């Protein structure tokens, strides 16, 4: 048995791999959230899973089943939590879910963990889950677990940004179901993308604050914040390869692994 997927291993094969190699365990974290009329609800889960598999193969790591539900979509970064299909967790639920999974891997003997996040709204709840897990583990006498937390989209060079966004980069918050995620999906899962349904709209501008409750009549109506018209599988391949290579190299550096 040689799968990088923990879920496909027997407990004995998994245990042997942990004891032999002290591998990096990769936990993808995404969401079930609308990504416009042209991309699937699981966009934010599929992409870190695909990248995670690439990284696991590169650094001889293992990949865990993803956290496939995320924190509530916010208007300025994900269109808002009022769309059908968007299925979100309370913050404390995501914190506990993350903490529990980390503590379980630590109990198995894992000491290197890479949390690969792709949903903008998750970040602070993952940080809190990590902090609480480390505190719990210390009280159990485990003080040598090291965790690296990555948002994959931060691993892109200026040169690639210029190539993918020749007319200027709108900024990560507006890239919800935009050129970047759509291109990566066209490269990895073209069967799930409907380019004929990409909305042709200008970037949606929001004021520098949030309103509660959300007024669905304001803000994006299609679910996207900037158009994905410029998305191509070629751009997706460039981005995907850069994510896998960049995250693999950083993971090696952070955990002191041989190249």
């Amino acid at each position, binding site marked *: 048995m040689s799968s990088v997927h923990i879920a496909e291993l027997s407990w004995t094969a998994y245990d042997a791999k942990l004891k032999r190699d002290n591998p990096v365990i990769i936990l993808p974290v995404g969401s079930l959230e609308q990504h416009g009329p042209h991309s699937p609800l699981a966009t934010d889960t599929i992409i870190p899973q695909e990248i995670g598999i690439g990284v696991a193969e590169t650094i001889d790591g293992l990949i865990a089943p993803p956290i496939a539900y995320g*924190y509530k979509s916010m208007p300025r970064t994900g269109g808002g939590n009022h769309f059908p299909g968007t299925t979100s967790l*309370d*913050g*404390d639920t995501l914190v506990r879910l993350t903490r529990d999974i980390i503590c379980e891997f630590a109990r198995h003997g894992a000491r290197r963990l890479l949390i690969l996040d792709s949903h903008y709204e998750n970040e*602070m709840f993952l940080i*809190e889950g990590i902090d609480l897990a480390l505190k719990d583990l210390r009280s159990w006498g485990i003080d040598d677990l090291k965790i690296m937390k*990555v948002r994959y989209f931060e691993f892109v060079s200026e040169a690639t940004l210029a190539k993918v966004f020749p007319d200027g980069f709108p900024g990560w918050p507006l890239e919800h179901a935009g050129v970047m995620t759509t291109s990566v999906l066209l490269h990895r899962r073209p069967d799930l993308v409907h380019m004929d349904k990409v909305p042709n709209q200008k970037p949606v501008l929001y004021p520098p604050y949030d*309103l509660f409750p959300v007024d669905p009549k304001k803000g994006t109506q299609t679910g996207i914040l900037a158009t994905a018209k410029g998305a191509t599988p070629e751009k997706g391949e460039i981005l995907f390869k850069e994510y896998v290579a960049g995250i693999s190299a950083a993971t090696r550096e952070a955990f002191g692994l041989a190249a």
Partner: protein
Amino acid sequence: MSNSVLISELAWTEYEKRLAGGRTPVLIPVGALEQHGPHLPLNCDTVIPTAVCEEAAKRIGALVAPPIEYGYKSQPRSGGGNHFPGTTSLDGHTLVLMTRDIIREFARHGVRKIAIVVGHTENLMFTTEACDLAIRDLKAQGITDMKIIHMGYWEFMTEATMHKVFPDGFPSWNLEHAGVMETSVMLYLRNSLVDFDQVPKHAPADFPPYDIHPVEPHRIPASGALSSGQTATAEKGKYMFDEYVESVAAALTKEFAL
């Protein structure tokens, strides 16, 4: 009776009168007790949003609640990390519940317009969650007309001001921890609390695009500041502060239809 905009200084009867049946907005500053380099006080992230709220409240006839003075854990890339002495932080859920409870209490008093004015980056998602939970709870109680504005005050800085205050280029909001903006505004607001001789002179912190847990202090400037506040002045501080007050007041006037 007191003309104060501070709820804490009013008698309950005066407070009730000033709420005007729910037409008066209540502004809640949310800060932190967190190291801000050797030159700034621990309460920097509370002092600034509280002052913005007080000035904005005077202009639009609002009231200001006592600030939440403890925030979420300082993160290395935006606040230097939570390992410094003095930095005193809450678990995420504690901050969520505290903020939610305070919103629900004001709703019980009849308040229907609330602004959450955050001064500490790491708070934002937890105060967001508090707004969401409060609105949900209130709906279950049949209160459906509460409106909350949630903001980080620094997001109101205009491009023009940014060029004026940072002529050599803006480092990023995360690296602005105890940098030119906060030092300038504190010089203007609370000069006596700033020890300008102690402003670090080091280059901005250079972080990789990921976080390591537990924190590795050697990756973080020992001063606790993430960029230098050497070019800070009280004049710049006044300029930025006035702009914050004016834009926050304008946003509240618009959204609350005052």
